[in-house]
């Protein structure tokens, strides 16, 4: 068996990649894609600790995270549609109404 530390390290790597994606991208849809990546990193960590601790509660929490991810994608994409209809643009650099 692969030791669980490898899975947790992989989870950390995917989490950091998602974080870099949120920081770097300028398209709002790409920001949401990076958020999905970070949620999946958390899922890997949950299941890895389940494997270590001989429990299944983490998998139940992964189930809830899947639910939250579906809700987040629905609401976030609805917001993106509303922003696009309002401004004809999905660039984060031009969404500066709340600045100053």
């Amino acid at each position, binding site marked *: *068996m*692969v030791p669980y*530390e*490898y*899975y947790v*390290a992989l*989870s*950390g*790597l*995917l*989490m*950091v*990649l*998602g*974080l*870099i*994606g949120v*920081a*770097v*991208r*300028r*398209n709002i*849809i790409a920001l949401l*894609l*990076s958020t*999905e*990546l970070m949620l*999946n990193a958390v*899922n*890997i960590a949950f*299941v890895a*600790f*389940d*494997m*270590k*601790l*001989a*429990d*299944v*509660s983490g*998998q139940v929490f*992964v*189930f*809830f995270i*899947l*639910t*939250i*991810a*579906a*809700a987040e*994608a*629905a*609401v976030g*994409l*609805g*917001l993106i*549609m*509303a922003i*696009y209809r309002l401004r004809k643009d999905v*660039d984060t650099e031009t969404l500066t109404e709340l600045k100053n």
Partner: protein
Amino acid sequence: MELTITAFWVFSALAVLSAVGVVFFRNIIYAVLSLISALVMISGLFFAMGAELIGALQIIIYAVAIVVFYVLVISTVPEFKGKAFESKYILISLPVGFLIFLELAFVSLYGAWKSNTGIFTPEVISEVSNVKAVATVLFTKYLFPFEVASLILLVAMIGSIIIGKKDHVIDEEAKS
């Protein structure tokens, strides 16, 4: 070499490559396609860890349902004009992200994880299946959060319908 070790290295390498693709592809369609690849590879990791139910749900919910959302929205929002990346943030976020990864890896390799172990040892899991174990815990101990999750989905559905509705529909209702 044992099969799970091979599966871990293959799936994790492909997952990390796909994640790099999600972050750094300029075209958003390619980013979504590599997100599908990353999700399928992570589901393979779940199967390798012995969480069959979560792996199957990962494919069904994430790689099919949520990605279809993204494809629909991308087909509605036309092409993205302008720069794909913010170059000054690349210079800042790559070293900072590497430092955060080192920190996470250090904690995960040398951290002392002290916790009570559960009752679902591999012997128990091989006797009752993984699906039965997860479902038993889900519908007894976590029954109330399960119901709250259904409420969250309902709220998200209503909210996304209201947010995504066209404005002139509201205006017509207000006039009449």
